[in-house]
């Protein structure tokens, strides 16, 4: 039942995306959503009394932690950084055009 913790984190971030109107706040919420998903993957792969999936010379372990979710998350973290930077760049551009981070004012200023 410990899976409930990342889901609560995810839902808080979803609430932030729905409610907040500031672009930077929305970007932060998206980042927190990513973190929740990473935590969920790491929890799925965990094994009780497991060891990290790295073989040591001379010792033969059998109870490794599942390495597959770790490999998926490892690439996804770096991609998350790049996409966050892309979102930030677009937000900065929008600020330079409209002078605000408020998405409602942006809609009003459009016409």
């Amino acid at each position, binding site marked *: 039942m410990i899976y409930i913790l990342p889901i609560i984190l*995810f*839902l808080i971030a979803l609430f932030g995306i729905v409610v907040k109107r*500031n672009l930077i706040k929305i970007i932060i919420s998206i980042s927190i959503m990513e973190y929740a998903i990473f*935590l969920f993957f790491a929890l799925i792969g965990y094994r009780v009394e497991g060891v990290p999936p790295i073989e040591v010379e001379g010792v033969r372990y059998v109870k490794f932690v599942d390495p597959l979710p*770790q490999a998926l998350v490892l690439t996804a973290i770096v991609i998350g950084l790049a996409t966050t930077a892309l979102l*930030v760049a677009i937000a900065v551009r929008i600020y330079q055009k409209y002078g605000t981070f408020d998405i409602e004012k942006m809609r009003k200023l459009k016409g």
Partner: protein
Amino acid sequence: MILGAILAIWVSNLVAAVVSMGIVGFGLALCFLFLEAPDLAIVQIVVEILSLVIILAAIMKTTPEDTKEARGPLRMTMYIGGAVFFIIFLVSFIRICGLLPEFGSPVLRMAGDYIGSGLQKTGAPNLVAAIILNFRGYDTLGEATVLFAAVVGLIVVLRKVGRKR
């Protein structure tokens, strides 16, 4: 971490919100260490620092103030909508939770094979490296391409001069 997330959503100064996001990220790195994933912990710590630097640089170029919250029926509708989302997802996830494998004993359908024969097949003791570069090389190639595309898009968006029309 959950407290940090609530703080990041609620606090009204954007710099404070970014620092609260740092709480979440470093807590995540600690969780990775406790969950026996040292690779992820290393990457997560450095990525968290860099993402704080990036968002802070953007805030310093613009404004650190949060937008004013409007009052009225639209506002209430948004809050109620958010709460309804929250409750529906939470309830449905609790229903789903019974189908997941028990915590601490994952189903090793693919990964059992990787664990059993990874060292003989690839010769790399670090099984995570063996998976991302040998068994699943296409995946990593695609991720590298996505990273490249994101950076090219960022340069195009932020470039100083565009072509004159």
